């Protein structure tokens, strides 16, 4: 008796997309902006670690580093990274609420989950600001 096997690799039709598919409409573009926004968090993490590393150089080295942060280039970098970080935060709140609902982890309206996410963001930001603010 012969046994029919499914082919190991189906020779199925695969639709080809242009590399600029994400420019096709606003939803795709927003998706790509969200994806790219995470990449801008990496240079901030590196520079923050560099700032901590400079502490090992003593007061003069650290003072020079802090003085250099007042340069227009540093501030422009900060504004650009902040813009992408905000995009990341806002899109992450919406995305997380959708994922929680899809996984059935929380039985609550999506709008409530989003609001709770934003409240957690505000609370965390206030806590960090309370710790960091208060210099001379």
């Amino acid at each position: 008796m012969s046994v029919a096997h499914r082919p190991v690799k189906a020779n199925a039709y695969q639709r080809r997309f242009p590399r600029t598919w994400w420019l096709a409409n606003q939803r795709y573009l927003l998706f790509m902006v969200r994806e790219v926004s995470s990449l801008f968090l990496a240079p901030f993490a590196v520079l923050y670690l560099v700032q901590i590393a400079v502490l090992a150089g003593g007061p003069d080295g650290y003072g020079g580093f802090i003085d250099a942060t007042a340069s227009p280039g540093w501030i422009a970098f900060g504004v650009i990274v902040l813009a992408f970080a905000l995009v990341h935060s806002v899109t992450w709140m919406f995305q997380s609420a959708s994922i929680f609902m899809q996984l059935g982890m929380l039985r609550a309206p999506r709008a409530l989950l989003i609001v709770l996410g934003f409240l957690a963001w505000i609370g965390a930001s206030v806590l960090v600001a309370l710790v960091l603010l208060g210099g001379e």
Partner: protein
Amino acid sequence: MQWISRLEVLWWSLFAAGGTLAALLLPVHIFLNNVAAPLGWVSLRTDTYEMATSLLGNPLVKAYLIVLLALTMYHAVHRVRLLPEELLLPLHERAVGAFAYGLATAFAVAAIIIVIMAS
């Protein structure tokens, strides 16, 4: 490079944890450290060597910074791994993944050493 696929749960966990921490905490750090303080709008406890070393002398602050920076990097490199596929670039996903996660792990180790040794 099968290990990249075998550790998929780990990469996703690090990605999700890093994405959540970055979403909650990074905007305020970036605003204060890279925009507001350099423009002179606020004074931070990291503005002078003495205050910064005092703040970093707290073990909780050290642990917080290590976790925040390391997980942020794991989150970012996960997107680096997926981006070539999304942009239909002819790059081997596992090779990009090995490079990206290797970079993030090296950064995490550097963060542990630098933050612990800082003060």
